[in-house]
């Protein structure tokens, strides 16, 4: 069947007409909207969007806190992840197994358990009183384990033969890292790291459990006062999407770019 259609996608064609894309996206949006409207009508809910406006300052502060916590956690988790990847590569058994334990323990347990465990037990023992700093530390410890695996995969993707060729050309150790390994690892790890950042943003919502007043925690607080649960959570979802969607699209573009380049 070769008839061009407004609704049928041809996987081989990379850039269909813009109008066609817009039409189909609008269709999906309309269906989703209809489902929400239908659900709301079944529970006789009349949206009270003014409630969002009333608590706008609070929401805004929470949103800002989520961004700040995530940014710091991203930076710290890059540090933790790099250290763990280096430790994993280390010739010293202690560092090797230390990083293995770290990675497996963190990846094998739920974040919520880690938050409670670290915050209430370790945090109390070592008197980390600032909830925000504690939260950032926990989140980056968690994310660092995943980052280290991303970095490890990036380094392993470089074939040994390339290192031998670099040596044969007369490059020294430092040049091999700077000119050959580093640029390739960056390309390899950038897309998954961007994805990891999106995960951090979403995972930061769990910090509400230790009363860090980020976006989710603020939403709990507001709905406890005004009972505008639907409106508040709709805003919460949109807020997270506003942060994660651009990252996700950017990641896809990076992946495509590097795919065609290599």
């Amino acid at each position, binding site marked *: 069947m070769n008839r061009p259609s407004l609704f049928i996608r041809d996987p081989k064609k990379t850039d269909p007409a813009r109008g066609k894309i817009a039409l189909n996206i609008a269709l999906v949006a309309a269906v989703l909207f209809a489902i929400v409207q239908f659900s709301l009508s079944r529970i006789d809910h009349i949206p009270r969007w003014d409630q969002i406006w009333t608590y706008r300052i609070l929401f805004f502060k929470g949103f800002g806190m989520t961004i700040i916590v995530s940014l710091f956690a991203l930076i710290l988790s890059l540090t933790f992840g790099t250290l763990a990847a280096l430790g994993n590569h280390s010739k010293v058994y202690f560092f090797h197994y230390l990083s293995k334990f770290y990675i497996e323990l963190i990846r094998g347990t739920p974040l919520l358990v880690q938050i409670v465990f670290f915050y209430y037990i370790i945090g109390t023992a070592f008197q980390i009183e600032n909830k925000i700093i504690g939260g950032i530390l926990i989140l980056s410890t968690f994310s660092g384990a995943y980052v280290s695996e991303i970095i490890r995969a990036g380094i392993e993707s470089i074939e040994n033969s390339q290192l031998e060729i670099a040596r*044969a050309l*007369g490059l020294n150790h430092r040049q091999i890292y700077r000119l050959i390994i580093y640029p390739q690892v960056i390309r390899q790890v950038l897309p998954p790291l961007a994805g990891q950042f999106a995960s951090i943003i979403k995972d930061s919502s769990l910090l509400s459990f230790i009363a860090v007043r980020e976006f989710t925690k603020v939403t709990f607080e507001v709905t406890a006062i005004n009972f505008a649960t639907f409106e508040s959570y709709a805003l919460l979802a949109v807020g997270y999407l506003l942060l994660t969607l651009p990252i996700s699209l950017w990641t896809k573009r990076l992946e495509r770019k590097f795919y065609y380049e290599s």
Partner: protein
Amino acid sequence: MNLSLKHLTKKFGEKTVLNDVSCSLGEIRSLAIIGPSGGGKSTLIRLIAGLIPPSSGTIQLDKQTVLNDEAFLIEYRKKLGMVFQAYNLFPHLTAIENVMLPLIHVHHIPKETARKQAKECLQRFQLEEHEDKLPAHLSGGQQQRVAIARAIASESKYLLFDEPTSALDPELTGEVLDMINELRQEGKEFIVVTHEMGFAKNACDYVVFIADGKIIEHGASQSLFSDPQTTELQSFLSRILEWN
């Protein structure tokens, strides 16, 4: 070139790959290393290239002993251009950037001069239309030719090839061997590990036959191929020439 191996032994762990190899070759312009796979050819050429240290024994190239010292080896490797079987190019750099890299960072040539030299070199081997392509967008033969051009641009004194065509199909093999032969006619000296007996016979003036970690036989290529002395070489040649 003068190449002298003295009691050269290479072990990988328990495994002895080259076993007390000695030979002294003087005034050779092009040397072929042949022999069955697993015999130790790649190991020998990597030892000569200063990429791995011998377990014992010494290598002398032009009367200079190859020392097991990183500072010495970095200088030593600059004089040699090594081309492996495949994937010689760095995948994140274009053809011309691959050629420029050693010029800039090993030979300290200013970037613009390096670009000019690299361009000229690629032009010389009819590769200029590919200069801005990444290795993934070049054929296997083109990749090998860019790798050889890189060694030439760096003005390597000697070229070392480890089976430069064995990953290529016959048509591409021809274009790479033609290029090496062209360089030979210009007086470039090289060592090549190869399974292409026609090439070893006609384009190399001396041949070393290696099997089981030993040099079994060596000699001027014409006489070695027409009159092999050892039964090992005789049976190796008859096996490899069976389908040719």
